[in-house]
Each structure stands twice: as C-alpha cells, then as structure tokens.
C-alpha cells in the first residue's frame, strides 16, 4: 500500500512545485552533489540552523523558514519558534512558508505548531504553506493539544510536616503489625513442617547454611580477632594506671563472651547475608517468580523463608562460638605481647573470670538474633515492588532494621539476664 502512496505523493509534488521532488525527509538537497557522504550529521550541518525571514505583503505577513528545524538544533529551535510568534504578533494574518525547510522532525513540527497555536490565540490568522507532503503529515501528526501537566496544589509547609509525621507513625505501626503477622506465618509454616516432614527442604537448608555460615567464617574470624585484640590493648593500657593489668583478662572474657562475640557476628551477618536474602527474594518478586511459586500451590514462606531463617538460626550460634574463640585468641596474643601476660597465665585468669553461664549468655542470644535478621530480611524482600529503586530501598531498610533490632534485642537480653542474675 505504501509504495503506491509514495508514487501518489510524487505526482502531487510535481504538480505543486513543477520540479522533481527534493526529498526532504532526510537527504537534504545540498548534499546530493556533495563529496562522499559522511552521513546525516554532516548533511544536517550543511542544511544550516533554523532561520526565518519576514516579508509583508499588504495585510498578510509572510514568514519564510529555511534550514533544519530539528531537535538537534536544541535551544535554537525553541528560540526561532518563539521568534515566529514575536514576528507574527500584531499582524492580521501570518503565512508561514515551509517550502524551503531542509529538514523537519517531530520536534520541529511541534515547535511550529506551538507557534501557530500561540498566534491563533493572540487573534492572528496563522497558517502554513508550501509544506511538502511528508512535512504536512508531520505537522498534522504533531497538531495535538497538549494539556499542561497538572500543577500540584500549593500546600502549607506545617500541615505537610504534620501529615508526614503522622504517615510515618502509621507506617511504623503497620510495619510492626505486618512483622507480627509474618512471624505468625513463619511459625505456622514450621508447624506444618513438623507435622509433615516431607515439606522440609533439607537440600536448600544445607546450601543456605554453607552460604550464610561456612562462607562467613573468614570474615567473622578476622573481625573478632581484631576486636579482641583492641579490647585487650585498651584494657591493659587503661587498667595499668591502677596497677590492675591482670583484670584486663576478666574484661576480655566477660565482654567478648557476653556481648561482643554475638553482637559483632549478628551485625556482620545482617550486613552480609541479610542483604543477600532481601535482594534475592526481592528480585524474585520483581520477576514474578514468587507468583509462579504461589500458582504452583507452593507457599513462598515454606519454600523460601523457612530454609533461610532456619539456616541463619543454625549458622549464627556456630559463628558466634567461632567469633568468641577468635576474639579470646586475639586478646591472648595482645596480652602476651603488650601486657606481658603469658598464655598460661591468661588461661588460668580467664578460667577464674568466667563461668559456663558467661559463655552461654552469648550463645543463647544467637538464635534469637538469627530469627530477627532472617524474618526482617525475608519479609522486606517479599515487600519489594516493581522497580529497581524499590529493591534498593528494601535492601537498605532490611539491613538497617536488622542491625537496629539486633541491638535492641541485645539490650533487652542484658536487662533480662541482669534481672535473673545469670
């Protein structure tokens, strides 16, 4: 259909102009005789920037356009279109002569249409003339009324502030509510698995334990070794003023076993594995994989959440133990090298300073930390919306919330253990 149409256009052009059509859409006439083509860039430059000239004949003001009226002319295109308006204003009728335009694209046509509409609004009878057929199509296509984007209603800053505050409070409460609901779902899923053990995904659990637990060992050892060493150094340095250097061993033992080991491990895992969980589940959500699970009759909680949370519950206590040992070893090394406490003395002093309960206090907290990290990161992953931005927000939120909750939980445990004198 189109080629016949094209031939038809040829005839019209001949009729209109009495010469062979200068094909216009792209190859500007100027370059037909030109040295080897260097592509349209060169031709467009040769076509020249958009220009206009004005000639009055009686009542009618003629504005002749030349050059390339295209988007590449950028700001110049807008300025020249505005110039049409300023030139045409005040006349009774304006005829825009388009016959000498070298190139026109949608942006150019839109700018011309805007200028015409502006003139018509100002009471000037504005029209186009001499446009080649393709240009006519362009002009027609771009002659749409564009509604300006709706302006936001002006608002009161104070009211906005209050509304934002209220919204964030409501959101926080909603999140708490959702979190509790999620915890319930998780417990229900565990219950189902206990009743029907075939629902349990052992392979996934082992794989996740490898990812979250085993592969975290190097970084956990490194950090805790360093922190143990720092605590020992500070203990020895500060206590030396009171001649109580040997009490630094008590300091290391109690601090590391009760608090630091589990806290550092949990924070590290929240950053390392929690973020990975949120990102993984979030991108699954974005690509409808979660929905695919649902329609297969599988529960995302059972398939995705339970193995990950259980893996964390297994991994974090194990890592905490490793962290405790690494930190104590770091303390031992510094005490030996910096505080002149031999390893044998260190171990004897340590044995006096701590009991099994000191060690257990840290370890008891570990699974709860794991539960908090696991639930927050899986839930935030599932709450991801469609955009990449939302995924980033969820991962950030998950990590920040997990670390915050880990510290809060640690504080609660401290109060609890103090109350029961454990």
């Amino acid at each position, binding site marked *: 259909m*189109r*080629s016949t149409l094209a031939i038809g256009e040829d005839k019209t052009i001949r009729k209109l102009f009495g010469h062979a059509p200068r094909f216009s859409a792209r190859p500007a006439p100027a370059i*037909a005789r030109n040295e080897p083509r260097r592509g349209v860039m060169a031709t467009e430059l040769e076509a020249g920037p958009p220009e206009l000239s004005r000639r009055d004949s009686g009542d009618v003001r003629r504005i002749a356009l030349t050059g390339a009226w295209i*988007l590449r002319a950028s*700001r110049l295109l807008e300025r020249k279109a505005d110039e049409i308006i300023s030139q045409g204003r005040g006349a009774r009728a304006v005829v825009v002569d388009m016959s000498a335009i070298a190139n026109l694209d949608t942006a150019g046509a*839109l700018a011309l249409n805007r200028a015409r509409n502006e003139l018509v609004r100002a009471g000037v009878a504005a029209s186009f003339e001499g446009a080649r057929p393709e240009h006519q*199509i362009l002009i027609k*296509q771009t002659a749409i009324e564009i509604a300006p984007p709706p302006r936001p209603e002006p608002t009161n800053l104070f009211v906005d502030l209050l509304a934002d505050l209220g919204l964030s409070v409501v959101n926080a409460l909603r999140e708490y509510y959702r979190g509790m609901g999620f915890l319930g779902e998780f417990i229900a899923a565990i219950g189902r698995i206990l009743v029907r053990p075939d629902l349990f995904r052992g392979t996934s659990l082992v794989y996740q334990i490898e990812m979250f637990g085993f592969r975290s060992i190097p970084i956990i050892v490194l950090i805790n070794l360093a922190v143990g060493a720092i605590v020992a150094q500070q203990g020895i340095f500060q206590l030396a003023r009171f001649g109580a250097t040997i009490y630094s061993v008590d300091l290391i033992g109690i601090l590391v076993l009760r608090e630091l080991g589990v806290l550092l491990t949990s924070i590290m895992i929240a950053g390392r594995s929690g973020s990975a969980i949120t990102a993984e589940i979030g991108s699954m959500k974005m690509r409808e994989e979660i929905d695919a699970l649902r329609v297969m009759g599988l529960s995302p909680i059972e398939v995705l959440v339970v193995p990950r949370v259980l893996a964390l519950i297994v991994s974090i206590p194990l890592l905490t133990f490793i962290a405790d040992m690494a930190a104590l070893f770091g303390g031992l090394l510094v005490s030996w090298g910096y505080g002149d406490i031999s390893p044998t003395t260190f171990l004897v002093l340590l044995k006096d300073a701590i009991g099994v309960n000191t060690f257990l206090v840290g370890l008891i907290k570990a699974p709860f930390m794991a539960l908090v990290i696991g639930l927050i990161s899986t839930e935030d992953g599932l709450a991801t919306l469609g955009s990449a931005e939302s995924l980033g927000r969820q991962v950030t939120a998950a990590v920040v919330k997990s670390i915050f909750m880990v510290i809060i939980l640690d504080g609660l445990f401290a109060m609890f253990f103090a109350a029961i004198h454990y």
Partner: protein
Amino acid sequence: MSDHANAAREPATTSAKEIVISVRDLVVQFGEHRVMDGLDLDVFRGEVLGFVGGSGQGKSVLMRAILGLLRKRSGVIRLFGQDRDALPPRQLRALEQRWGVLFQNGALFSGLTVRQNIQMPMRENRNISQRFMDDLAMLKLDLVGLPPDSADKLPAELSGGMVKRAALARALALDPELVFLDEPTSGLDPIGAAEFDELIGTLQKTLGLTVFMVTHDLDSLYSVCDRVAALSGGKVIGVGSMREMLASDQPWLRAYFHGTRGSRLIGSLGRGMGGREPA
C-alpha cells in the same frame, strides 16, 4: 521489488542506495558455540528490514552485536558508513544518538515515570527547556498511542502492551534515523499489533526512518517490511522482498513461510498483497 518502491520514493538521490548498516563476515562465539558464522547483511536507508529466524538462532545476538552490546570475534560492522570499533569515544557517542532501540521487554527505567523515561535521552543529549521537553514527551506518547495520563505512571503500573509503546516512545525521543525493534509486536493483541505496524509505517514515511526489526510476526512482515532477511546456522540464508521469500526454494524458508500458520496467512492475504508491492 522494493528497489522499485524505493526508487519511486527517492528519485533525487543517486541510484546507489545508501547503506546504513553493513555487516561483513561477522563471527560471534560464546565459548565453543559459534552463533554468528561469517554473517553478511546490508540495511539500506529508509527501508524496513524484517529479520526472521528460528528461536535460539541468534537474531537478538546480531542486534546486540550491531549495537555494540556484545563482543564479536571478528568481522566488520559499519553504521552510517563508520566502523564503530575505529571511532573515538566522543564520535561514538554522537553516532549512538542516531539510533533508538526498543528492547524486547521494553527496558524502561523502573524508577522513573514514563514521562521521565522519554525525556531521559533529551535531557542527557539536548539542551532544551523543560516545557518543550514536556510537550515533546506528550507528543511522543500521542504518536505511539498512549493516553496522556500514562505520562506520570511508573513502568510497573503499565500493561505489557503499554510498556512496549512507552519504550518505543523513548526510542523515538531524539527522532533517530535508525530504529532497532526487538520483537515489537510480541505480547500485543492483534489490534495493538496492527496499530503498531501502521505506526512504524507512518513514522518511516514521515521521518525517513530506517527500521531494523527482529520479529516473528508474519503479519508485520507482510504489512510493513520492505525486505526480509532470514537467519539460520549463523548466516543470512536469504534476503529479499516478502514475495521473493515466498517464492524461495530454500527448505527452511519454505518451512517458515509455508508452515501451517504461514500458509493460512498467505491464503488470506494473497489478494491484498498486490497493492503493497507494485509489479
């Protein structure tokens, strides 16, 4: 056939048609698997080239190789007569502004609204006022047939067909000379697909667009493509007008165009095709 059509449309230019994309001896290999094996292809200015091939034959691979998203093993790819490997970065950037790409799944920026998506190339590459950009964005939306209220929606809030249209609007943001379309009509309903074809035809006519279209849609091949190229075994096994493709004896082409779906379409369109390609 299409030569005639082109000649009719562009009598002022010399008889030699300008080659916009020229691929010579292209080899693309993934590990041991050779996807493109000495492929040659020319795309002329102002034509709509439909590119067909079986699933997994590497149609998208060729497109990505031309766009420079994939490393090729050997061969030369020239765009607008320029070898992209030989261009300094600045010129390459200028060259890249001369085409627009519609990816198969739209590839809209998910964090930006449709309006911002369309304005992105303008904002980065052109110095124009926000008001004009807004108007242009609305115009492009209108061109691709999206309602104005979709401008402030996020891609996640759009249906599949709307995503395609919005992505086309973004591809056309800078009024490119060359447009790559990767399965533009897949996932559209027949009416939407027909409108899309018509849209591509109109744009091609008004803007002198050159279109490189990877497609499986036989309707599109019939209704908008000037020429069709078929890919099989890492080579182009046939290029020509739809009529030539239908007449070809090549076994794969026969299977593709004369399969159940193909012949059903030929049966129904046989009469209508005369107007499309003047004999």
